[in-house]
């Protein structure tokens, strides 16, 4: 199963490679990883999306916790949370398809952030499903370039799944 794990770490050099090394060294897989400073510049937050059965996920969270520079590990999958990812897609539609690209962008609440005579660059934000659906639709128009930010996630306040 896919898990989104949020890892609070000391903002020191080498921390990223400790975390990445843990995954590669133990054969765990990273689907996406995003890192950024928190409001406290001494602390960074990593959001890691990984897959594995319960036993592997238990090991991953324990092993992360064991790293000296890791302050806190939360498996967001266990709590109600919001996930977002941003992608930038450069499409090169034929003249007759251009209107359709713009229409779809609108429906998905995306934005055209750059355009050239032959291409549009669309920014779109959302959860996994929404992004997958949009990307699928764009495929037929010819995707020239594609970047994704990696997922970020945050727990919803108050309500927790389970107990």
């Amino acid at each position, binding site marked *: 199963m896919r898990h989104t794990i949020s890892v609070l770490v000391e903002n020191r050099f080498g921390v990223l490679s400790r975390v990445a090394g843990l995954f590669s060294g133990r054969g765990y897989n990273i689907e996406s990883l995003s890192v950024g400073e928190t409001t406290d510049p001494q602390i960074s937050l990593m959001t890691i999306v990984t897959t594995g059965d319960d036993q592997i996920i238990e090991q991953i969270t*324990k092993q992360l916790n064991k790293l000296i520079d890791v302050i806190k590990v939360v498996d967001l999958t266990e709590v109600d949370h919001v996930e977002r990812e941003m992608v930038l897609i450069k499409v090169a539609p034929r003249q007759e398809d251009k209107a359709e690209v713009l229409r779809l962008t609108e429906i998905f609440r995306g934005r055209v952030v750059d355009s050239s005579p032959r291409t549009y660059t669309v920014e779109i934000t959302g959860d996994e499903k929404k992004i997958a659906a949009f990307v699928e639709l764009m495929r037929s128009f010819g995707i020239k370039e594609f970047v994704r930010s990696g997922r970020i996630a945050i727990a919803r306040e108050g309500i927790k799944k389970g107990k």
Partner: protein
Amino acid sequence: MKKTGAEIVIECLKREGVRHIFGYPGGVILNIFDLLYDEKDIQLILTRHEQAAVHAADGYARASGKVGVALVTSGPGATNTVTGLATAYMDSIPIVVMSGQVPTKLIGNDAFQEADIVGITRPCTKHNFLVKDIKDLARIMREAFYIASSGRPGPVLIDLPKDVTGDKVPFQWPDSVRLRSYNPRYEGNKFMIKQAVNAIQKAKKPIIISGGGTVLSNAAQELRELAEVTDIPVIMTLMGLGSFPGTHRLSLGMPGMHGTYYANMAIQNSDLIIAVGMRFDDRVTGRLSDFAPNASIIHIDIDPTSIRKNVPVDIPIVGDAKKVLKILVNLLKQEKDRQWEAIRKAWLKEIQSWKKARPLTYHYSEDVIKPQYVVEKLYELTKGNAIISTEVGQNQMWAAQFYKFDKPRHWLTSGGLGTMGYGFPSAMGAQIAFPKKTVIDIAGDGSIQMNIQELATCVIYKIPVKVAILNNQYLGMVRQWQELFYNERYSHTHLDLVPDFVKVAEAYGAVGLRAEKPSEVEPVIKEALKVKDRPVFMDFIVDWKEKVYPMVPAGAAIDEMIFEEEPEKKKKKLRAVK
């Protein structure tokens, strides 16, 4: 008052109670070596190889329980420590290794003798530091010792750029260490401990498996009480030897690949395993799907990642073995009217029948020295009181099987990594910690050549380590696998040339002795034990055909053991070991 970085390092070492450092100099670490030139309180032992310096620090730590320290230069000096760090890491040994580094301005420039040692050693240290700012130096020194020795111990590396040891700042010793991201948990969960008590009360066929964690947490006394109060037999893993007396009536010896038949049978038939400070290594469990099919498991370990890593656990208790066992024993003692002995009778009897059926044996010979006989004689003549280190291979397994350890911290072996070349330098480190004790490295003729240069160190510092070489002219353990599993195709395991170890020893100014017949074994050992001012090599020319038995082939269940065939005929006496 202002101090240079090097002065701060020395001052911090003193405050940590360090008396000995094992090291090797080089350009960028000179600031520190220069201070050691007239340092009175700290002695630097100059080894002949950085790997040996780290193993020596490791042996020092295992034997004494204190943090071992090594000091090396950058680049090749630092990379030479990797095997030592990995060895200590796998066995959770508290050491601090300080390496020199090129000046901060040059880092990343492929400067002369630059190596990214923090990057290289990240996966084989508990933690490591690059000191980029001298202002952090004292704090990092303090944290390094704290991290190495607390929680689940392990090696820590500190990389010291030359300008950091050369610059000056006002020195301030941090009063305490506070790490918001590292708080090892020592107290076991009370509720879980109560569950453990219940499980122990209900169990009909319980066993204890004790590992290196029991030794590290100094919990041998508590473990013994647990066993004696409840009459539960104890199995010690390779790392756990000495955590419970090997001669105790409840001892079943070692489990797993070269464990005793009765230890493995007890595990397979048990209904409750109390695992203390051990991590269910594959050499212990054999084929996991068939491991202890009827047992529920209580797992006491300070490292949460050890729990449920390899086997499902019914009652996990994260905490320090000593603290947890103390509470557990107290709770069990409150059951005053419980007749533990009567309850345990049938189970102990069943175990006794396995002991009778297949004791730990070997076939003694009068013509050729059996390696097991050498270990038995070493045990006898040192009355079981020596600190024993080993190399890796058959020598290591025979030492584990035939030397009975009654006390913790008398057994130094590379269990997790299986590092050939570990035994001699680690014995050296242990001897530095305990100058008066008898310290013996039980070695193979292959392994000893991996750090044989330390003869010089031992001679110079008058370190009277004894090395018992079980000389079979082979990389014996590998040869054994080839014989059993590779159609006797002995690809590159015959050593072709083994040096004359007596002459090698003598060339260094050490004592060299040789035994070629069984009758010479005892006199050679006695002679060696008399030497107090220099190292001794004992070259035992042993039966090269000898194999380590019993054996669980890799990937088999631990009750699928192979035993030694009966010797062809007559004269040869079967020797049972009590």
